[in-house]
């Protein structure tokens, strides 16, 4: 049961974060942090389909995570979802067309190995 929940969490988190990155890139760099400007940005983001879809996927991930927390330790629950790092870095390269240089691949690989070790 806990592995099924982890599968749901990984799939929904990956979709959510790639869509979130896509939506925020379309929005553009946030430079103004005054309340009025933040409010205007929130209004624009609420009409950004990628951001809205990412929030839905994140809600799925959140409730699956809550279910997992009832039956697993925090130090198991969080690290076990590390496979999202591999999937998302790959999708950042393929879908978001980011220039993932060797430092980023190396950093992501170290993080994945580290997170797996932490979860064992």
């Amino acid at each position, binding site marked *: 049961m806990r592995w099924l929940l982890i599968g749901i969490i990984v799939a929904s988190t990956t979709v959510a*974060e*790639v869509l*979130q*990155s896509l939506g*925020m*890139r379309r*929005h*553009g*760099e*946030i*430079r*103004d942090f005054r309340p009025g*400007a933040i409010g*205007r*940005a929130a209004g*624009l*983001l609420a009409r950004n389909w990628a*951001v809205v879809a990412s*929030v839905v996927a*994140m809600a799925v991930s*959140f*409730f699956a995570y*809550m*279910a997992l*927390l*009832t*039956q697993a*330790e*925090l*130090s198991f629950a*969080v*690290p076990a979802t*590390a496979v999202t*790092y591999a999937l*998302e*870095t790959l*999708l*950042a*390269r393929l879908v*978001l067309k*980011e*220039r*993932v*240089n060797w*430092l*980023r691949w*190396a*950093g*992501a*690989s*170290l*993080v994945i*190995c*580290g*997170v*797996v*070790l*932490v*979860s*064992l």
Partner: protein
Amino acid sequence: MQNDGTRLRIKSWICATVVVLANVCGNFFMKLGMPAELPTPLAYVAVLFRPQVAFGVSLLVLWMLSRMTLLSWADLSYVLPVTAVGYVLVALAGRILLHESITGRRWTGILLIMAGVALVSVGSAPQTVARKHAPADAAQ
């Protein structure tokens, strides 16, 4: 006048700090308030009204908003490794506050994560795909 690369890097580090702290504290309060089991769908909603869970959820909302802000200028392949320092803090919080154990293998994992975070946050620029300014800014 500092150059744009330095400005973005410092801005990214500040924002990433908020992202990581909101996530770690949010998860910690969630775990603190979570009952042993959630038998019915209604229980999932009812648990949100427990004070610790409600506080945890507010912090996770802050986490999501600060992460969205960070992603408005930084690459996903930069944000992922850099914010992974949260895993280290979660393991340490579990040890110190919830008395969960950290084995030698776990410590090795923590060191690897820290190395990965250092490599990307120091060695890599946050942005490889240029962004426009947000429309709300441009309107001024």
